[in-house]
C-alpha cells in the first residue's frame, strides 16, 4: 500500500493472539490516524500490553495484519524491521531503564546503538531531552537505581522522545506514581506530544490519565474492542461495560477473573 496523507499511521486488522488455551486478542480492528492520541483502556490481563507488543514485533500475532504507514509490519524482518522501529519511541510501565548504564546513556541509547551517533553528540541531545522532561544535567551521570519512581518515568519519557520518533507508545504511564506525580507525568506527555506533533498510542486503566492524554479512547474487553470513540463522548457511550469501567464499579456486566 502506497503511503499518502490519508494512510493511517497504524492499522490493525483482525489481529489474534493466544497463549496456550487463553485467547488474549480475538480479532482486533483498530485504526490510528496521523497525529491522533489514542488510549486503550481495559482491565488487567485484557490484552492491552499484548496489542502494543504485537505492533512492535516483540510478539508475533497468530493471525491478522498490522500496518505502519501502510507497510505490513507483520512481514518485516531484519534491517527493514529495524528501520520501521526507528519510527517508534516507547515509555514502559516500569520505565525499563538499563541499570548498568548511567541516565544519559539510557536516554542516548537508541541514538548511539540504534543509529550509530557519536557519543559526545548523543550525550548533548540526551541532556537536552532530560531538560524537556524537567530534569537537570546533574541527573545525567546518576544510575537509574538512584532515582525515584517519578524521575525514572521522566527519564523513560526522555528516552522515548530522544530520537524524535513519529509514534510514541505509553504503557501504563502513571502506574505506581502518587496522584500529583501522575498528573505531572500526564502534563509532560501532553506538552511533549503537542510540541512534537507525534501520533501516540497509550494503554492504561487510570481514567484520569486516559481523559487527559487522549483524543480518542478504545476499550478492550475479552480480546475485542467493544467501544471506540472521541474522549469527550466516553461518558455518554451507552455501553454498560464502558460505564462500569470508567466509574470503577464492582457491579456490572464485567466480572473480574481471579486467574489469568
Amino acid at each position, binding site marked *: 500500500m502506497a503511503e499518502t496523507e490519508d494512510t493511517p499511521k497504524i492499522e490493525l486488522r483482525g489481529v489474534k493472539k493466544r497463549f496456550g488455551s487463553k485467547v488474549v486478542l480475538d480479532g482486533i480492528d483498530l485504526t490510528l490516524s496521523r497525529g491522533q492520541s489514542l488510549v486503550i483502556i481495559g482491565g488487567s490481563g485484557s490484552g492491552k500490553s499484548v496489542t502494543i507488543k504485537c505492533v512492535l514485533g516483540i510478539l508475533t500475532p497468530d493471525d491478522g495484519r498490522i500496518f505502519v504507514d501502510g507497510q505490513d509490519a507483520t512481514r518485516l524482518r531484519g534491517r527493514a524491521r529495524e528501520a520501521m522501529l526507528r519510527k*517508534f519511541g516507547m515509555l514502559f510501565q516500569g520505565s*525499563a531503564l*538499563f541499570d548498568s548504564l548511567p541516565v544519559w546513556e539510557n536516554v542516548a*541509547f*537508541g541514538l548511539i*546503538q*540504534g543509529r550509530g551517533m557519536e557519543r559526545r553528540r548523543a550525550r548533548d541531545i540526551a541532556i537536552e531531552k532530560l531538560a524537556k522532561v524537567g530534569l537537570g544535567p546533574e541527573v545525567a551521570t546518576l544510575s537509574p537505581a538512584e532515582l525515584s519512581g517519578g524521575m525514572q518515568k521522566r527519564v523513560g519519557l526522555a528516552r522515548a522522545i530522544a530520537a524524535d520518533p513519529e509514534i510514541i507508545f505509553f504503557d501504563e504511564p502513571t502506574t505506581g506514581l502518587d496522584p500529583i506525580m501522575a498528573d505531572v507525568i500526564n502534563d509532560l506527555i501532553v506538552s511533549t506530544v503537542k510540541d512534537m506533533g507525534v501520533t501516540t498510542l497509550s494503554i492504561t486503566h487510570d481514567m484520569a490519565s486516559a481523559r487527559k492524554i487522549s483524543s480518542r479512547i478504545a476499550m478492550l474487553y475479552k480480546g475485542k474492542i467493544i467501544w471506540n470513540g472521541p474522549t469527550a463522548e466516553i461518558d455518554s457511550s451507552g455501553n454498560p461495560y464502558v460505564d462500569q469501567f470508567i466509574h470503577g464499579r464492582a457491579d456490572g456486566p464485567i466480572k473480574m477473573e481471579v486467574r489469568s
Partner: protein
Amino acid sequence: MNIFAAIGRVFLAFLAQTGRLTLFMIDSVTSIVRPPVYWTLIGEQMLKIGYFSLPVVGLTAFFTGGALALQIFVGSDRFGAESFVPNIVVLGITRELGPVIAGLMVAGRVAAAIAAEIGTMRVTEQIDALTTLSTNPTKYLVVPRLVAAVVTLPVLVLVADAIGVFGGYVVATRSLDFNGSIYVKNTIDFVTNQDIWSGVIKMGVFGFIIALMGCYNGFHSKGGAQGVGNATTNAVVSSFILILASNYFLTSVLFLR
C-alpha cells in the same frame, strides 16, 4: 491418571524445549557474523568471563593437582610405580581435570551470572526496550557473551593446566620427597601437544555451552524473582550436564581415533 499420557507430555515438552534451544543457538551463531559487532561489549565480557574467573579456577586447579599427586602416589605405591606421579598428574590435568574442573567452576560462576542478569532484564522489560530502540537483543546481549566465552576459556584452561601441574609439583616435592628438577623434566618429557590441545578444544566447547545455556535460560525466564531464580538454577544444572556429557564425547573423538 494415564501414565502414558503423562510420559507423552514430558516427552513433547522435552522436544519443544530442544527445538527452542536449537533455534536460539542458530540465531545466536548466525548473529555473530552479521553486523553490527559490539566490540566494546565483547571486551567487557572477556574481562568478566575470562579474567575474573582466574582466581577461582586457579585455586581449584592448584588443589586438584595436589590431591591428584597424593592419590597417584598412594595408589602406585602398592606396585612400586611412584615415579609415574608427574606423568599421570600432567596427563590427568591437561586432558581431563583441567578443562572439566575449570569448566564446572566457570559454569557455576558465569552461567548463573549471565542467566540472572539477562533474566532480570527480561522480567523488567529491558529486553523489550532494546527492541524498541532498534537494537537486536541477540546481537547486543548474546553474541558478546558467546564470543567472549569461546575465546577466553581456552586461554583460561592453559593457565589452569599450569597451576594444576604446579599444585602436583608442590605436593610431590614438599610432602612426597620428589626431586624438583626430575619432577619437572618428567612432566615436560611426557606431555605432548595433543594433551594440551585436547584441553583447549574441550574448553572452547564448554565455553560455548556455558554462555549459550546462561543466555538461553535468561532470555526465557518468566515471572518475577522466582522465574529468574529458576532460570539461574536451570542454566547451571544444564551447563554441568552438557559439559560432562560433551566431555565424554570429545574424549572419544580426540583420543580413540
